[in-house]
C-alpha cells in the first residue's frame, strides 16, 4: 500500500515536472535588437564546466560594460550564478562602464545591486575599473572595492591584479604603475582596464594612443595578461609581443556583428550574444572559459605563463599571499 502511494507520488511529480518544463520551453523568448530569436536563461544549456578546479587556484569572473539594468543583463547574471555552483569563483573583475546614463542611488540599485544581489549576498567581491561612462566618484562605492582610488592593485595567491583608469592615463598614473610593477614579485601580473589596446571592433577598434604609452611598461615589467571592455563583444586577441589580451565587454550591452571579419588580431571572437569569462589561475597556467547568456561555452582554453620565475631586483611587494587571501590596495598614488 505504502509502496503504491509512493509510486503514484513519483509519477505525479514526473508528469507535473514535464508539464512545467514544457510550459517553460514554450514561453516566447525575447528578441535582440537584430530581431534574431534567442534563448533565455530559463532555456539555457546546462552547466558544462571545462575548468580544472585545481587546489589553491585563483578563481574569478571577468565581465564588462554591465551597467544597464536590462532584462538581458539579469539573464546573464543568472547564468553567472548557476556557474558559481560548479566553479566557486571568489571575485569578479569589472571592465568599466558600470553605470550607463546616470549615477543616482537608484541607478546603483537598478544597474548593479539588484542584478548581482545573490552574488553580493554570497560575499563575492566585485573589483571595478572606470569606463568612459563612469564618474570618478564610483571609487568610493563600497561594493566596487576601489578603496577610494581610480587605479589600484590587489593580489590573490600568486597573482597580482592592476586596475587602471584608461580614460585618463596621465603621467601620475603611469609613474605609479611602473613603481608598483617594478617591485612586484607575483608570478602572474594581470591588468584590467576599460579601453582595449588591441581590438577588432568595427566601432572603436584598438586604443592605439593608450597602447603607445602602456605597452612598453607591460613589456618591461613582464605583464602576462590584459583584460578590457569598451567593445560590446568578446574577443581573444592573438598574443601581442607575448602578452595575452582579452576583451569581455558584453556584460550588459551587445553590439552584434561588430567584430571585423578576418581581422588579423582575432584568435576567437563572439558577438552574437552577451557573455562573461571564467578564469582559473593555477600555477603556471591560466585556464579560461567564456559563457554566453544562453549558457553555451563559446571559447575555452589554457595559456601558459610567459615569464620565468625571476624576482625583480628590488622585490619588496608583499604579494606572495596564500591563495584566496586578499591583500590591501597599494599605496596611494
Amino acid at each position, binding site marked *: 500500500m505504502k509502496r503504491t502511494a509512493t509510486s503514484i507520488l513519483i509519477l505525479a511529480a514526473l508528469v507535473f515536472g514535464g508539464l512545467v518544463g514544457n510550459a517553460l520551453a514554450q514561453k516566447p523568448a525575447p528578441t535582440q535588437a537584430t530581431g534574431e530569436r534567442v534563448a533565455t536563461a530559463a532555456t539555457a544549456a546546462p552547466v558544462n564546466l571545462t575548468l580544472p578546479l585545481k587546489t589553491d587556484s585563483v578563481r574569478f569572473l571577468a565581465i564588462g560594460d554591465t551597467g544597464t539594468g536590462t532584462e538581458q543583463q539579469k539573464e546573464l547574471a543568472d547564468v553567472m550564478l548557476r556557474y558559481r555552483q560548479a566553479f566557486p569563483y571568489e571575485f569578479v573583475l569589472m571592465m568599466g562602464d558600470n553605470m550607463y*546614463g*546616470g*549615477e*543616482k*542611488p537608484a*541607478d*546603483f*540599485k537598478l544597474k548593479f545591486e539588484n542584478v548581482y544581489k545573490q552574488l553580493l549576498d554570497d560575499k563575492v567581491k566585485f573589483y571595478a575599473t572606470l569606463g*568612459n*561612462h*563612469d*564618474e*570618478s*566618484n*564610483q571609487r*568610493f*562605492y*563600497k561594493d566596487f572595492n*576601489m*578603496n*577610494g582610488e581610480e587605479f589600484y592593485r590587489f593580489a590573490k595567491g600568486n597573482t597580482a591584479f592592476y586596475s587602471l583608469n*584608461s*580614460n*585618463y*592615463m*596621465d*603621467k*601620475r598614473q*603611469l*609613474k605609479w*604603475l*611602473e613603481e608598483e610593477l617594478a617591485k612586484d614579485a607575483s608570478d602572474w601580473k594581470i591588468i584590467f582596464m576599460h*579601453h582595449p589596446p588591441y581590438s577588432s571592433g568595427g566601432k572603436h577598434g584598438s*586604443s*592605439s*594612443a*593608450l597602447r*603607445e*604609452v*602602456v605597452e*612598453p*611598461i607591460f*613589456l*618591461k615589467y613582464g605583464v602576462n595578461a590584459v583584460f578590457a571592455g569598451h567593445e560590446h563583444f568578446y574577443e581573444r586577441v592573438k598574443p601581442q*609581443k607575448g602578452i595575452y589580451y582579452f576583451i569581455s565587454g558584453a556584460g550588459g550591452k551587445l553590439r552584434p556583428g561588430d567584430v571585423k571579419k578576418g581581422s588579423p588580431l582575432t584568435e576567437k571572437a563572439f558577438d552574437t550574444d552577451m557573455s562573461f569569462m571564467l578564469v582559473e589561475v593555477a600555477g603556471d597556467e591560466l585556464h579560461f572559459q567564456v559563457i554566453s547568456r544562453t549558457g553555451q561555452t563559446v571559447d575555452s582554453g589554457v595559456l601558459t605563463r610567459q615569464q620565468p620565475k625571476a624576482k625583480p631586483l628590488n622585490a619588496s611587494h608583499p604579494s606572495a599571499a596564500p591563495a584566496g587571501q586578499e591583500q590591501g590596495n597599494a599605496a596611494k*598614488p
Partner: protein
Amino acid sequence: MKHKMNRTTGFVMGALVVFGLTFSPVPTIAQQTAGQQPDPLESLPVKDREIVVAFQERVKDYTKMREAIELKMPKLAKESTPEQIQAHKTELEKRVREARAGAKRGELFTPGIAAFIRKTIKSEYKGRELVELREAVLEADTKGVPLRVNYTYPESKELVEMPPTLLLKLPQLPKQVRYRFVGRNMLLVDRENGLIVDYMLNALP
C-alpha cells in the same frame, strides 16, 4: 667558393641582426617609458614656460580654494553608499559654485595658455593621427554638455577618453582637475563635483 659564400651569408645575417636590434619596435629594458620621461616643461622656450607655469598656478589656486571647502565637510569614506556619495557630491558642488559665483570663461584658460594648448595639439597630431583623434572625440555622446563655467558636466554624458600621448604633452594638472574634450572644445572639469571650472573653444584643429 663555398667558403666565400658562407662568409657573405654570415655578413648579411649579422647586418640583419644589427638592423633588427636597432629598429625593433619592441622596447628594450634600457628604453625610457612614458612615466619616466622628463617634464615637457623643461624643454619649452622661456616664454611658453612662463605661460604654462602661470596657468598651473591658477589651477592650483582653484584646488586650494576647493580643498579648503572640502576640509569643512564630512570626509567621504572609502566604502561609502551611493547615498553618501551623492550627498557629498551635491554639497561640494553647491559650496564651490557659491564660492566661485561670478567666475567667467577665460580666468584659467587665458588667451596665452589657450594658444599654447592649440599649438601643442596641432604639432602633436598630424595627418592620420589627427583624423583618428577627431573621430574618437567627435563620436562621443557629449551633446547637451553645457559650455558654461560653474555648470555641472551631466553625469549621464560620456567622458571622452583623453589620449595619453596628449596628456603627456599638456601642462600637468592636480589630480582633482581634468582636461575634457567636448566637441572641439576643451574643458577643465572638477573630478569630484563635476563642475566646469573653465573652458576654451576650438582646442582641436
